[in-house]
């Protein structure tokens, strides 16, 4: 620590990140200085272009420079294969979310106005809208990108907060059912902050153990130090709480149904896809890079968590009556399936590429299907807003066969029926787990297969509630005053179309997507 050394920043590698954050900042400035009537027409193109631009930059990065092999920004950010893949996925998914945000009617006219008050009515009639939503979304997306690519725990913590804080706010901005929305916001905020504190305390413990918070540094320290140090174990478990909270693993899942249900649907879509993808990226980094040496300690615990998550998600979803809440539990179950993949590690690290590829592929297909499903949810409306209650969906197949058919297809993909993308996602993860279980001399072998069996049983239970919705839509008579299906806006139509295309396309020809995932995973994480 002698003298001041100017940090080197690889701007080229970080360009997508910087573009998103930059656009977010400009968005804030627009809110401050642009006249109200102009804001939307500036914000929307700004957001879309920045996301598209960032995606283009990711492509350019891959196409031109290849994948960096060392961490960027003085070891703070790792722009490696998985990062770039996750970035690409997050950017496309959030683009979809922004397209849905762009739809009228999701967000409150004036968040400050008390629900049911004259203020609210006035704000609504004057056609006011919170265009802050766009920069907030961009900040959240930026946080996600950084979260998945962070190479030390501090950056990870900051990214976590940058991602979460805008989301806390966004959750509270629903136009209809504002009480629920605000409640979701409050709960998400309190619990999120609570879990961040755990994350932070765990980080402190690990810092105490390793003397550093950089992931490779921790790994290094573990290879020389004691693996039984309570500081390490305690720190790791508290860190795990924060991460598992974000992906919604049991028993840290309780926020998910409430928040998903209360939040405006485009935001739910963003959380269910983008946040999950980013958080999985972070989970992988922490568990595989930093704590790789602790394999045999965390795997039994993770086994229980994964099994519990799948079962809880699947079982609780059965009796849900709200479509978004049901999808929230479904998302919990899927987080459990992903955790199976997280556990599929090998003694020889280079073999992990297959497991990593499986997880990345799963994230890709699940993300697209999720965004598509939520986009469909936005289209089915009652006079009071979206028709959330499942009973309202009865007979939709007769009223609007195309939409119901598309939604049914998404549900089948969630259930993992062959010839949908979801099947291959699930297959990839299960295969990775079984494959890691068959490695010789691994005492966890049978356990891994056992976990896959648990996953399979959970899938079967989960299939029940997906099928239940299909039954409702197709086999029940429509209610007399059933919900209306609004004509989709251009944006929503594109989102649904693309999601369907990916779900079908990958379901029939998964190889191209697998190739990309394999390539992204081939170099594993930068250590």
């Amino acid at each position, binding site marked *: 620590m002698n003298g001041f050394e100017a940090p080197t920043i690889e701007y080229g590698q970080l360009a997508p990140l910087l573009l998103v954050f930059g656009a977010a900042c400009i968005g804030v400035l627009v809110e401050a200085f642009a006249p109200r009537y102009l804001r939307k027409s500036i914000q929307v193109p700004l957001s879309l272009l920045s996301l598209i631009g960032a995606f283009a930059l990711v492509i350019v990065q891959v196409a031109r420079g290849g994948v960096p092999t060392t961490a960027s920004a003085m070891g703070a950010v790792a722009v490696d294969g998985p990062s770039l893949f996750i970035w690409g996925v997050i950017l496309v998914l959030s683009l979809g979310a922004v397209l849905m945000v762009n739809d009228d009617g999701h967000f409150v006219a004036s968040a400050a106005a008390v629900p049911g008050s004259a203020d609210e009515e006035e704000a609504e009639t004057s056609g006011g809208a919170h265009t802050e939503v766009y920069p907030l979304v961009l900040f959240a997306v930026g946080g996600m990108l950084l979260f998945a690519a962070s190479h030390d725990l501090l950056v990870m913590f900051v990214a976590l907060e940058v991602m979460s804080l805008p989301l806390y706010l966004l959750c509270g901005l629903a136009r209809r059912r504002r009480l629920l929305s605000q409640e979701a916001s409050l709960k998400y905020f309190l619990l999120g902050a609570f879990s961040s504190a755990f994350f932070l305390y765990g980080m402190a413990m690990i810092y105490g153990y390793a*003397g550093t918070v950089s992931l490779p540094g921790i790994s290094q320290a573990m290879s020389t130090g004691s693996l039984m140090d309570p500081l390490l174990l305690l720190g790791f478990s508290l860190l795990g709480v924060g991460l598992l909270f974000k992906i919604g693993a049991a028993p840290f899942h309780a926020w998910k149904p409430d928040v998903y249900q209360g939040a405006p649907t485009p935001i739910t879509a963003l959380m269910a896809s983008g946040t999950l993808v980013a958080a999985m990226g972070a989970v992988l980094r922490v568990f595989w890079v930093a704590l790789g040496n602790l394999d045999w300690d965390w795997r039994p615990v993770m086994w229980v968590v994964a099994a519990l998550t799948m079962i809880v998600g699947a079982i609780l979803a059965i009796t849900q009556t709200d479509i978004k809440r049901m999808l929230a539990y479904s998302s919990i179950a899927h987080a459990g399936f992903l955790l199976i993949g997280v556990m599929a590690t090998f003694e020889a690290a280079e073999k992990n590429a297959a497991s990593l590829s499986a997880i990345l592929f799963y994230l890709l297909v699940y993300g697209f299907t999720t965004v598509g499903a939520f986009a469909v949810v936005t289209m089915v409306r009652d006079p009071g807003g979206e028709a959330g209650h499942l009973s309202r969906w009865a007979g939709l197949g007769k009223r609007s066969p195309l939409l119901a058919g598309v939604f049914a297809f998404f549900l089948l993909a969630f259930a993992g029926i062959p010839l949908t993308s979801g099947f291959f996602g699930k297959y990839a993860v299960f295969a990775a787990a079984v494959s890691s279980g068959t490695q010789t001399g691994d005492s966890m072998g049978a356990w891994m297969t056992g976990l896959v069996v648990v996953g399979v049983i959970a899938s079967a239970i989960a299939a029940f509630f997906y099928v239940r919705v299909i039954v409702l839509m197709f086999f029940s008579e429509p209610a007399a005053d059933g919900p209306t299906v609004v004509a989709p806006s251009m944006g929503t139509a594109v989102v649904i179309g693309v999601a369907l295309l990916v779900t079908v396309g990958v379901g029939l020809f998964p190889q191209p997507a697998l190739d990309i995932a394999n390539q992204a995973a081939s170099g594993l994480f930068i250590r």
Partner: protein
Amino acid sequence: MTTQYLILSGLIFAIGALGVLIRRNAIVVFMCVELMLNACNLAFVTFARQNGNLEGQIIAFFVMVVAAAEVVVGLAIIVTIFRTRRSASVDDANLLKY
């Protein structure tokens, strides 16, 4: 002689966590979360001292900044809720359940 500081930090963290669990007022709950963050800060600084590097202290600053941002967002949410419900009790917000 850093152990005492760690114990203190642990105590503060525990008090904060306990506060989150037993207090109803959203503001108080929120303050308890802040307390937990500060417990972390104390731990960081202590470990920085113990490890003999500055990273921990730097982290503490970061945490403070993040906590400040969190306060902004948190208070905004709590105030909005309060305006709507005329209550700051966390337990009153339980429409979303089961």
